């Protein structure tokens, strides 16, 4: 589904990613772990098409098609979703209205009509229940005054609504207490199937107790220095990152 080849990217002459290779197939869950500053968030941003970063070498294929020239919205329309570490507050636009706009823009890109309000409401109710989201929450302004946990849960709610093929969860565990973490992880697991894939980006092993990866990759200094199964995460938790340098 996602194939990254020799990816180099950075900010203004400062190279952050120094040759990433990564293969993710449908039905798989991958985790990328690494210390602060290793390039984890850069990698997720570059996959999602953030134009702040400059890609200097390499290529990203999504479903066998290069997406290098695609805008963030085009990548979203193709089925890439990025859950943000720090979601943005939008006063005056409710969660419901925001998700409606996002869904209808995606449908528009595929030449489809807007989703009928009845179907949309039904879908919202269904997904809100999945993530144990209160109805009042949906009529609040997007992320405005939300707690850290509410913001993350709202990210996963949007993911549930948009049903992406590839979901990238960037530090979704930060700011979550254990109960919220379980709800979020449970939601992700329920949405997971053989046709989609998840890339979890995290500093700690904690989240991986609940979203169990098929593959774990260690990112250090802009390169994947080690890959393995889920047991690698436990090893990192125990030994830290120093032994890999």
């Amino acid at each position, binding site marked *: 589904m996602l194939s990254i080849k020799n990816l180099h990217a950075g900010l203004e002459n400062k190279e952050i990613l120094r040759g990433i290779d990564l293969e993710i197939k449908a039905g798989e869950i991958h985790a990328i772990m690494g210390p602060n500053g290793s390039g984890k968030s850069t990698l997720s*941003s570059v996959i*999602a*098409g*953030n*134009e*702040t970063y400059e890609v200097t070498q390499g290529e990203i294929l999504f479903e066998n098609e290069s997406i290098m020239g695609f*805008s*963030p*919205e085009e*990548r*979203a*329309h193709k089925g890439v*979703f*990025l859950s*943000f570490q*720090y*979601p*943005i*507050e*939008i*006063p*005056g*636009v409710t969660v419901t*209205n*925001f998700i*409606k*706009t*996002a*869904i*209808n*823009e*995606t449908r528009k*890109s595929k030449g489809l009509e807007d989703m009928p309000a009845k179907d949309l409401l039904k879908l919202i109710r269904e997904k809100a229940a999945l993530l144990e989201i209160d109805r009042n929450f949906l009529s609040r*302004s997007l992320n405005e005054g939300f707690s850290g946990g509410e913001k993350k849960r709202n990210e996963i709610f*949007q993911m549930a609504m*948009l049903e992406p093929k590839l979901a990238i969860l960037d530090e979704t565990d930060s700011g979550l207490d254990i109960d919220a973490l379980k709800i979020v992880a449970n939601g992700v697991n329920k949405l997971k199937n053989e046709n989609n894939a998840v890339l979890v980006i995290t500093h700690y092993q904690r989240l991986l107790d609940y979203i169990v990866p098929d593959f774990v990759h260690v990112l250090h200094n802009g390169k994947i220095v080690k890959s393995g199964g889920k047991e690698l995460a436990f090893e990192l938790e125990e030994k830290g990152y120093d032994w890999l340098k």
Partner: protein
Amino acid sequence: MDLKEKLISSFLAFENSTATDTNIHQIRSESFQLFEQHGFPSKKEEDWKYTSIREVLKPDYRIFSSTESDINLNEVKKYFIHEIDTYKLIFVNGIYNSLLSTTTHDGVDICVMSSAFTKPKYKMVVDFYFNKIINKNQHFANLNTSFATEGAFINIPKNVVVSKPIEIIYFNTGTDAELMLQPRNLVVVGENSHVQIMERHQSLKENTVLTNAVTEIFAHKRAIVDFYKIQNDLDTASLIDNTFVSQQKESIVSVNTFSFGGKFIRNNLEFYQEDERITSNLNGFSIIGKEQLAANYTLVHHKQPNCESHELYKGIYADQSTGVFNGKIIVDRDAQKTNAFQQNNSMLIDDNASINSKPQLEIFADDVRCSHGCTIGQLDDKAIFYLRSRGIPEKEAKALMLYAFGNDVLEKIKIPELKTRITKIIAMKLKVDLSLEL
């Protein structure tokens, strides 16, 4: 002949055509003397430094419209808030249009200045209030008074909640190539009474028009007045709006100014707090582009103890447009325990857009809370990326963030249908379909 000379000769002709033995005549003559003496403001005056009016004064304006122009309802209906029932005071090229208007004399007077000036039953009200809170240093207000003949006359006695909002619309049909309009409104709201008013100046064709409007608002004890100014005129229209508010004990007056369209917009808004426990709210939201200018000059004069003022002005400036915010707050020595807040936030979305923002606080009391804040920023790339990553195209993403930026001013609108209307204007202005049920 420059505009000032033209105004002098027009004034003489105008005064000859009206009765000269009235108080109004006296007031007009005095005001004109002031105008003659001081003329138009020059850029050298601090208050006009950032809003040069040279270009605005250049055209060869007619001082009174040449024709009594008729318009039909279908042509102008879209400018009404038709989702709700309202009183309407409609003027066309400065002349009252009774066919399109809905007035009342049933317990309250919602009618026009021309009848207030001439009918004996209004003489007391006019003598008591007309031109009583005009700042004599405002050149344009003096000029307006000199020619004051027509406008909205709203006189609400005590203990009345006016059942529906009042819409005041000044249309300009474009029959005169270059026209000056000088509408004059007087609003008197009695003790415990409540009224909502919307005011708009609208050109129907692209002719050069300069509107120099004056509104005086008197709010008595515990009166509540919500005033909305919708400024979304064509690129050929310029507006100088002078609004003066006098408040009595425990009254609450809010003036909300939305500036989107028009070539040149200058708002002079002055509040005078004459007693204790008064609240004054001043809100503004501007979205302009091209070579537009929108300037808000505000004054809140706290004269008595225990009063509040809340001021929130936001602006989005694109292309080569210019914004100006000048917020003056005076707290007299007697005005202890004053709470005065002022905030001005601007967003510059193009390199050639500019904003001049200036708080001006003159505080003579020692036990007060006064704060002011000013920010000038740009759209946050991270926020735009967030929206785009959810499939929302760049243009819509930017529009959504700009809408969100102004949202707290929109939240001040207490008439839901007006809020919807203004949201639609914003979507048009941002050139997107904000198809949100906002």
